[in-house]
């Protein structure tokens, strides 16, 4: 068990490619930290630096209280599960799992015992004599996890371990990984581009974009209080809807103007937004916070639009809409409501759930202030 911390870590690759920029992150003992972001955001590079597979250009990485920048991977006491599992093709499952222990000169009996125990935990005892090519994707994934847990390391590093599995298996394996973490209580750092994995697995999630850490917090906090427009748009399926507009004073009260439509703010953010009066801003609202009837006790924050696509998903309907100005957005509605393509409707926003961002890809969420 260990604490892992990064202090102002930067990684610059050959040709001045900045992969990670000034990243600081604290991962508490026994914590499951998920690093999430789109491809090329630097999340894998960060994990590889923690593993010792990449040098750190600047900054400090500590495991417990030891600076590990110059310590080779084998002495960092970590285990890693690779995206393609990286099982040694010429070795049996047993040999794959035992390899690390053998190199660390564990007695034979102990190796056997540990491998058996890990295999039992993962339900792969019957596969121990098989070679990786005789295993299915899911089985390989388990072996890769098994290889990591036999060593009983201080921390597990996972590099998109579920991305090669089919959707159904991914969901079940995700739950198993979570259960395994609860059982082993080992500090885990998990890299993924799948926001659903991040939300479900992480005790905390770290959202990265363009080599920069955008936000580190518990999953629901990141979802409910995204610090900027990127984080807001990255988490959630379908993603948050954004409308360009302006904060303006109308009838003595600040509101958000989208074309000819006015959206009233909740009193919670009204004062904060005064200072943005007259500025171009972006309004963000999640699809589940748009309804066909105005929320109780709120002024009518309606937006007139036309339905362009209806996707019934069983538990809900995703409805794609377009305003007269050309803004496209999505709303989740009750699956039993009859709504048709080309129908003109008014969608109401829950004023309590509105976020206001500064313009730009990583525009700050100003509604969190004050």
């Amino acid at each position: 068990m260990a604490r892992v911390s990064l202090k102002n870590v930067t990684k610059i690759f050959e040709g001045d490619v900045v992969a990670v920029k000034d990243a600081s992150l604290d991962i508490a003992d026994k914590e499951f930290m998920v690093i999430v972001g789109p491809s090329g955001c630097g999340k894998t590079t960060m994990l590889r630096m923690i593993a010792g597979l990449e040098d750190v250009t600047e900054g400090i990485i500590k495991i417990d209280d030891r600076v590990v920048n110059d310590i080779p991977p084998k002495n960092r006491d970590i285990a890693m599960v690779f995206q393609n599992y990286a099982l040694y093709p010429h070795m049996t499952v047993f040999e794959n799992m035992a390899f690390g222990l053998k190199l660390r000169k564990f007695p034979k009996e102990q190796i056997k015992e540990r491998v058996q125990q890990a295999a039992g935990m993962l339900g792969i005892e019957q596969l121990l004599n098989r070679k990786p090519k005789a295993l299915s994707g899911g089985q390989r994934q388990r072996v890769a996890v098994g290889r990591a847990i036999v060593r009983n390391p201080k921390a597990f590093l996972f590099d998109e371990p579920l991305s090669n599995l089919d959707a159904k298996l991914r969901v079940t394996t995700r739950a198993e990984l979570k259960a395994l973490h609860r059982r082993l209580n080992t500090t885990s750092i998990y890299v993924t581009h799948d926001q659903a994995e991040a939300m479900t697995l992480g005790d905390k999630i770290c959202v990265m974009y363009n080599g920069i850490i955008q936000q580190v917090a518990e999953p629901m906090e990141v979802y409910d209080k995204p610090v900027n427009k990127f984080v807001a748009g990255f988490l959630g399926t379908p993603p948050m809807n954004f409308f360009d507009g302006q904060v303006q004073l109308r009838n003595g009260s600040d509101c958000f103007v989208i074309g000819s439509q006015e959206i009233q703010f909740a009193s919670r953010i009204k004062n904060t937004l005064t200072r943005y009066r007259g500025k171009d801003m972006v309004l963000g609202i999640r699809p589940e916070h748009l309804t066909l009837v105005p929320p109780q006790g709120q002024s009518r924050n309606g937006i007139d639009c036309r339905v362009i696509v209806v996707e019934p998903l069983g538990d809900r309907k995703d409805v794609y809409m377009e305003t007269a100005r050309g803004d496209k957005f999505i709303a989740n509605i009750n699956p039993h409501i009859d709504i048709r393509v080309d129908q003109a409707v008014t969608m109401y926003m829950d004023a309590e759930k509105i976020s206001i961002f500064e313009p730009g890809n990583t525009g700050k969420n100003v509604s969190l202030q004050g």
Partner: protein
Amino acid sequence: MKTRTRFWKASHIILLFILSLSFLFPLYWMLITSFKLEHENSLWPPTMWPEKFTLENYVSILAHPEDTPLFSWFKNSFIAAASYSVLSVIISLLAGYALARMTFWGRKLYLTLLLIALTIPGIILIIPSFIVVDFLGWTNSLKAIIFPALSGTFGVLLFYQFLSKFPKDLEEAAVIDGASNFRILISIIVPHTKPLMLTLLILNFMGNWNDYFWPFITLYSPSMRTMPVGMATLQGRFEHFYGIMTAGGVLMAVPSIILFILVQKYYIKAITLTGAIKE
């Protein structure tokens, strides 16, 4: 449609049969000539099967070690070919691994030089090589036919090419498992390069075993000769004893054939190798 496929299949088989025949016939001819009495070789039309089997040709080579020290030749050839092929595989593997996986100053330049070296015909290097070998005092010693050829670049480039495509994940997994560079090479890379190693081994063994010109100019005393150089002396200046020459040829071909049969499986695997490792 079916008849057409069958026709093509049949014509392939016939073509392959004719090709194999053209490869095998000289070997067959060498073998039966070595068992014929000398006078039978001058008959016309030639006999496709010995009228009378004889081991006389073999006896006359093997029974006169003072003229034809076959065992010394065999020993020389074997020591040279075996040491050269084993050393060259080791050097090629290590150099190829370093070039493919390690970063060091001048790596690209070195690779370019290796490629250029590959384009230089070996025959051009005979005289400078001889001067070097002579300077080192290695003439008339097996060192002359083992060490200079180790500078060959083909094997290095072969391993470089293969190992450049070797999945990095596997090596990194081994690094995390606690393996050193050398351990990775032995436990992870070597098991995958076995076909390549054996192919290079057999190619180099045969190349060295069959080499005539270089041993001919560097090894001059009769007992230091290798098999091909020794065999050449079986050819008289004014008359040819085909039986004896072919018997020598058979004795010389046996080790290569045995080696080939032993590693044939890997040899074919290496030729069909696409370079990709499948898990």
